[in-house]
């Protein structure tokens, strides 16, 4: 049963991954990514890591790919991209080379390491105990053994957010025309502020 | 018969009397009265300058601008004798909110050169009205930013409010529908 689920999911994951690369339409590529992520979530389930599976769906399919699609739609990149021109010269050759090197590395690890590298164990760090709840195990691991890594990751993400905000700020924003002075006298009513704020 | 004679007489005295009284003027333009309202009769050339004067005098709004085609009624009333009448007239209604007064301009536009300076620069509110007048009478307005048809379809032939325009001859156009008239 587990094997059957694994084979089906692996097929979904792989075909999704190929779809991401091969799709000419960026939205189709993003959808293929969803298939891959979903397949991985089911693989997590298959391994008994329920929490990870759900988090995978919530965070990756539910938030990240949605954001990717959001950007795609907002920018209206719905036409087929021109594949003839390469933004960076020779990037395809380099990409193929790097891909081959990575694949070779993975193969090498499997071949050299034999059973030692691919043990079939549920997890490389801690075995999932069937009796203790999933959430408890992950929580304990995260906040004891890996608390430093967790904090570093949090810090990294915060820095990334701040950086993104800084980058997206435009020093000279829209420059609308100043509002003309109205013939009517604007009182000291607090409403004045709202009016002007919203008018811009 | 007696009535007719009396009427003739009245007419005669009227036409006799007009040259004696100097024509009334306002803002350097001929002025007449119509139903209690002031009517000015500027020429096409003096129109832009008059508008500027009026704007300074507090006539901040052109409330209405429309055309009239006097093709079948050339002897119109209310126009002073010194003004030579033309086929078209553009009637502009201005309002002075401070003095609560209205002013009407009647501009004579000849049929062979149906054009007038646009009031858009001073009175942007005439944008749609001038377009409508163009659409309906074919009077073009120099200096109008976007003088296209406004009520009729883009490619409509003719100007429907001209008196020599025969309504009903042109089939109503729906895209793709055969013209069956």
């Amino acid at each position, binding site marked *: 049963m587990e094997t059957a689920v694994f084979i089906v999911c692996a097929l979904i994951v792989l075909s999704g991954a190929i779809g991401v690369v091969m799709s000419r*339409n960026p*939205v*189709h590529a993003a*959808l293929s990514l*969803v298939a891959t992520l979903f397949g991985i979530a089911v693989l997590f*389930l*298959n391994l008994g890591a*329920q*929490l990870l*599976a*759900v*988090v995978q*769906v*919530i965070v990756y*399919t*539910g*938030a990240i790919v*949605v*954001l990717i*699609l*959001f950007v795609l*739609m*907002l920018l*209206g990149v*719905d036409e087929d991209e021109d594949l003839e021109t390469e933004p960076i010269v020779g990037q395809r050759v380099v990409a193929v080379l790097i891909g081959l090197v990575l694949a070779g590395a993975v193969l090498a690890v499997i071949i050299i390491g034999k059973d030692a590298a691919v043990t079939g164990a549920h997890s490389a760090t801690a075995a999932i105990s069937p009796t203790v*709840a*999933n*959430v408890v195990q992950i929580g304990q691991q995260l906040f004891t053994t890996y608390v430093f890594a967790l904090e570093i990751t949090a810090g990294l993400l915060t820095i990334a957010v701040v950086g993104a905000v800084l980058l997206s700020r435009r020093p*000279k*924003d*829209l*420059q*609308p025309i*100043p509002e003309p002075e109205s013939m009517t006298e604007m009182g000291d009513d607090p409403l004045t502020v709202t009016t*002007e*704020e919203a008018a*811009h | 018969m007696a009535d007719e004679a009396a009427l003739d007489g009245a007419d005669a005295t009227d036409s006799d009397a007009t040259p004696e009284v100097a024509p009334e003027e306002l803002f350097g333009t001929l002025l007449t009265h119509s139903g209690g309202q002031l009517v000015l009769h500027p020429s096409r050339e003096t129109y832009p300058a008059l508008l500027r004067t009026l704007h300074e005098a507090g006539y901040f709004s052109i409330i209405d601008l429309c055309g009239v085609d006097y093709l079948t009624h050339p002897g119109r009333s209310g126009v002073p004798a010194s003004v030579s009448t033309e086929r078209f007239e553009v009637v502009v209604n201005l309002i002075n909110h401070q003095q609560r007064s209205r002013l009407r301009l009647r501009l004579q536009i000849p049929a062979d050169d149906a054009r007038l300076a646009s009031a858009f620069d001073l009175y942007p509110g005439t944008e749609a009205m001038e377009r409508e007048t163009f659409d309906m009478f074919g009077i073009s307005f120099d200096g109008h930013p976007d003088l296209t048809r406004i009520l009729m379809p883009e490619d409509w032939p003719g100007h429907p409010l001209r008196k020599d325009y025969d309504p009903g001859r042109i089939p109503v156009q729906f895209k793709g529908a055969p013209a069956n008239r």
Partner: protein
Amino acid sequence: MIAAASSIAAATVSGDPLLAGHIDLVIVLIVILKVVVIFGLMLVATMLMIWFERKVVSDLQNRVGPNTAGPFGILQTLADGIKFFFKEDLKPARAQMRVFILAPFLTVVPAFLLFTIVPFGGDFSNGHDGSVELFGHTTYLQLADPAIGILFALALSSIAVYGVMLAGWSSGSKYPLISSVRASAQMVSYEAALGLSVCSVVLVSGTLSTHGMVMAQAGEGWFSFIPHWNIIAAGVVPFVVFLLASQAELNRPPFDLVEAEQELVGGYHTEYSSIRFALFFVAEFMNSVTMAAIIVTLFLGGPAGPAILGPGWLWGIFWFLLKVLAFLFLFVWIRSSVPRVRYDQLMDLGWKVLIPLSLGWVILLATYYVARDQHWNGVITIALGAALGLTGYGLLRFAIGTSRVKRLQGVVE
């Protein structure tokens, strides 16, 4: 689709005693029976919900509403469904056809799946654990009770957005496109607020399982139930946040920007017709029912309630339906009385109010529990925590105010 759900549920099941031991044919049949019953009930409930909404709205608006098909017009939805089924299915020429066809199913499948984790009956009074006897087996009156229960609901609602987004995008039309852009931003924003308010509940209940939550909120007698409810135990704040965020998540007024008729014609389903449109319609109302059920489970004790006479599980169903109906009425009431908010106001509400509020509340609750476990002085800890939270919120408001002033100055210069 339900079969798929049950296989996931079976793989993740933890609580249901039915699946604890050896699984034989009877148990499989019981599960299938549950699936079929829930599927049918959901369809009927959706039908009734559409009728209920139209009827209540029309009452609130001084008009009659559906009154011809069946008694009180109750069959109106059925008639509409039949009509939709026989309507011509228009396919826009510029649509991305495969995605266009897929999108309605992407909305309707999560809507069905969502109900699997809702406990809708059972006797929770006097210490009973809500289990019932069915063909000689003990089971819960809910399709699945995975350990990660409520997270499953969040995951499904985050998938549900795909249907809306892709429908809008694939239509090849501009209004639906704007709608799907709105949908994606809105869903991602309110998912966060939704999740954070669920966090408070999880903290209080100590479990992610929906059955466990209902158990935690059960009590004895008539009025001992109510103090256990999370609406009180977790404070009112998470409840309010969840209620608001769920309205946004459901695209219901006043947060129905995605299909704001006055602005975007029909929103994402502008180009849809016939049964495909009906699927969106069904999914939307089904989600309303399910969301009401989830609110009831999270905050009002689900089916837990006193059993007076007769079988307790029937009382459980009765209490559950009563609470759900109350919420459905509330939804309809809100819909008929408030104008729609604007897109930027919606985002402001989500990011500047609801998310900081629910985050602060989670931290405050956590502080309280830590203080209790460590035997600190509860009052002082809470006061400190609250003061810190308020300071943080004040700083946030200040920052927002400053940025607004700066923006205005930049505009003026």
